[in-house]
């Protein structure tokens, strides 16, 4: 979906890098990116992610790098606990906005679980959040370091959750999990992903990945009973905390 934005902003110095946290690797990722599937992606996804009709109609296969991250390494490096999340990095390689929801709001809560439909009001709210985020991105590309959306280093550090022992241990389990998955040892792989989830219960990436490890589930949208039970267990905590776009001095 970001191809539309890329085409608009690449000549002004923006590069987009997409990273897929998918232990099943290319098998899971390729069908979601290559041209033939783009038109068949469910409209539900548009509403869920806040893409309005105008943008959705212009979707095209990406020409920016789309990378495959089987061990969720970038999630660990950047403190990403869910997808989709985004980080902004300036020309000197500094983080100017650390990991946050990439323009999505907590739409998952409004989804009708039987029909996978969204109420119109929710769709409108989602589009508004999405467009505000895109506006912020445009502003950064146009104004660089002067953009109010560029966070001072102190604020970047404040928002960054430094990993603890649980996080690095969980990431090591994921490394093992991916290794066993690649060897076809599914039960062993799942055991390590489950350990990672126990260690990092707030990581939706690990949780959703572990639910989707069966080869027959590869590439499917995770909308089964286990997933919904986990979402309900959040209570009032958002599934996708929206990006806090307020400028910080």
């Amino acid at each position, binding site marked *: 979906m970001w191809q539309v934005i890329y085409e608009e902003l690449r000549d002004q110095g923006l590069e987009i890098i997409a*990273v*897929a*946290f998918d232990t099943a690797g290319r098998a899971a990722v390729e069908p979601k990116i290559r041209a033939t599937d783009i038109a068949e992606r469910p409209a539900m996804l548009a509403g869920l992610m806040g893409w309005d009709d105008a943008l959705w109609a212009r979707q095209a296969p990406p020409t920016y790098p789309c990378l495959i991250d089987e061990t969720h390494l*970038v999630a660990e*490096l950047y403190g990403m606990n869910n997808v989709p999340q985004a980080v902004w990095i300036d020309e000197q390689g500094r983080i100017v906005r650390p990991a946050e929801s990439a323009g999505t709001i907590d739409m998952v809560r409004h989804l009708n679980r039987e029909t996978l439909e969204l109420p119109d009001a929710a769709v409108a709210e989602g589009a508004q959040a999405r467009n505000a985020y895109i506006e912020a991105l445009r502003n*950064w590309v146009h104004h660089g370091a002067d953009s109010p959306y560029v966070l001072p280093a102190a604020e970047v550090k404040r928002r960054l959750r430094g990993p603890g022992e649980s996080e690095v241990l969980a990431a090591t389990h994921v490394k093992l999990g991916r290794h*066993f998955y690649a060897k076809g040892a599914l039960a062993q792989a799942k055991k390590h992903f489950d350990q990672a989830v126990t260690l990092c219960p707030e990581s939706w990436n690990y949780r959703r990945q572990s639910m*989707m490890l069966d080869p027959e589930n590869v590439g499917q949208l995770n909308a089964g009973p286990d997933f919904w039970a986990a979402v309900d267990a959040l209570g009032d905590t958002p599934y996708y905390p929206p990006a806090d776009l307020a400028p910080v001095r």
Partner: protein
Amino acid sequence: MTTILYDDRESAVDARADGAHLWLEAEALERATGWKLEPQGLCRGDACVQTRADWRDDAGRVDLAAFAAHLGQPMIADADTVAFGASVNARRDDLLSTQAPDFTLPDLDGTLHSLSDYRGKKVFLYSWGSY
């Protein structure tokens, strides 16, 4: 044969597990981890760590478990595979600098891309999953 997962390396080595210890020949250690046994200690890039006496056995092997523990790296063994993770301090140092940590990953065609390849551009790095 033991499979060692260290950083993004995967190596098959002869390793002797003995309680909490994991003994490797110096050559195997270097192959598996990139750390080379020099007179001044175990060295990698511009880092050198003085080797402690109890990290060596009589045959001159090195206890990778003890060395990793010294560096704060978690170690998890399962059957014949031993995986090592990053230390909390290494991860925290990255983040405190607010420098974006570098990484290298393949695209759909298998071509490797590093974040550092794009220095000089504004980078919008976003994550997604097929699930």
